[in-house]
């Protein structure tokens, strides 16, 4: 993993916040300093003159702890003296370590971390972290693209798309025509090419073909693999390989699904299934389903 990062200064917020808030609460509970009435620092119980002041006070306390401790209250003078040492130590903490630590997190943890406070939000929304997570969870493809809204948004869109693509197969397994009807966009240009080679166009034609397929065949569960997606504003497509879990008639198929985004929801507008080329031979013509 490439641990170089091009965000400047956000890494020190991560560790700074971590250490600062831990020691801040311990230290100031000890000294019971009066609360400063400022909106940004409203939850910080310290007698400091700026937003950064609380953190630097905590940093000096941290320095005190790290350099072998000291007495209890009344050490403010010594702490201001040690402030330089403490602050420079914190500032030296490199962004690369933050990026590296974040690379071990899954997407729910990364999201939750970004919701704790503003420093964590900057760190956890780091573009490179989400790019690395995209490559880990989805595909190494698209390494050279730059998503318009950043990698976190791209990851989010991909996750939503992969989920709805999986829903398509769940609907087939559950043989629910109403759900299939809700998944497809009600438009005259939607098209569906089943693995049998039959071609249907327009919403009612397409739904009609699914009505036959879902009622006709026994319920089929598909194992879906190699899911690859590409998301653009308003449209996305997904390719995959689907293996029907049917013992004597496997019929693996290549599938392409295309979706359009309307009112924040993805709708299927195109489905194309074809027999997979296995061991250099085109598989048997599979039944209509798929």
């Amino acid at each position: 993993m490439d641990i170089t990062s091009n965000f400047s200064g956000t890494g020190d917020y991560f560790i700074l916040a971590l250490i600062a808030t831990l020691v801040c609460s311990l230290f100031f509970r000890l000294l019971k300093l009066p609360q400063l009435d400022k909106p940004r620092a409203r939850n910080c119980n310290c007698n400091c003159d700026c937003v950064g002041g609380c953190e630097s006070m905590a940093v000096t306390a941290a320095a005190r702890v790290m350099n072998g401790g000291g007495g209890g209250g009344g050490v403010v003078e010594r702490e201001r003296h040690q402030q330089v040492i403490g602050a420079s130590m914190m500032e030296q903490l490199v962004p690369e370590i933050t990026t590296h630590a974040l690379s071990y997190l899954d997407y729910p943890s990364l999201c939750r971390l970004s919701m704790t406070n503003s420093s964590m939000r900057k760190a956890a929304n780091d573009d490179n972290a989400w790019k690395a997570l995209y490559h880990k969870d989805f595909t190494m493809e698209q390494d050279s693209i730059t998503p318009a809204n950043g990698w976190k948004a791209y990851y989010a869109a991909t996750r939503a798309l992969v989920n709805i693509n999986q829903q398509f197969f769940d609907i087939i397994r559950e043989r629910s025509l109403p759900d299939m009807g809700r998944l497809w966009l009600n438009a005259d240009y939607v098209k569906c090419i089943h693995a049998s080679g039959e071609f249907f166009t327009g919403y009612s034609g397409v739904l009609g073909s699914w009505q036959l397929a879902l009622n006709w065949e026994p319920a089929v569960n598909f194992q879906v693999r190699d899911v690859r997606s590409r998301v653009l504003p308003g449209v996305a497509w997904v390719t995959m390989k689907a293996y029907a879990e049917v013992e004597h008639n496997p019929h693996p198929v290549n599938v392409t699904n295309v979706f359009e985004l309307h009112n924040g929801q993805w709708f299927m507008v195109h489905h194309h299934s074809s027999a997979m080329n296995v061991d250099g031979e085109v598989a048997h013509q599979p039944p209509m389903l798929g």
Partner: protein
Amino acid sequence: MTSSKTIVLRSSDGATFEVDEAVALHSLMIKHRIETGGADSTTIDVPEVTGNTLSKVIEYCKKHVEAPNSDDLKSFDTDFVKVDQAVLCHLAKASYYMNIKGLLDLSSKTIADMFKGKTVEQIRETFHIKNDFTPEEEEELRKENSWNLFV
């Protein structure tokens, strides 16, 4: 018993540690310094690391160099990072500067594990993070993360 060359490592606060060369070479930074430093480089300064941290780093290197295939290496690593947050962060920083990949991975992963599986409120409690978002920012946050069913 073969006599092996020893190297002296000097921390930022002047503490010195004598270690076997093989142990010191576990740090790629030190390896590079020795290889480019000439025949007399028996004392290496490590100004980015304090004595306390350096002694722990050396303990890690010793274990990994002297007994790399031992069965208790995993439990050693697990116990090694059972330290408070400040020490853990210092270890991560030191391992980065001294280019010790194993320790960097170990300490980074340990830091990351502290966040996993916790709710937003739990993360705040564990690290005493104060919520400093305005209501407008809370709304932005909701939109930013609403795709995540686990939030």
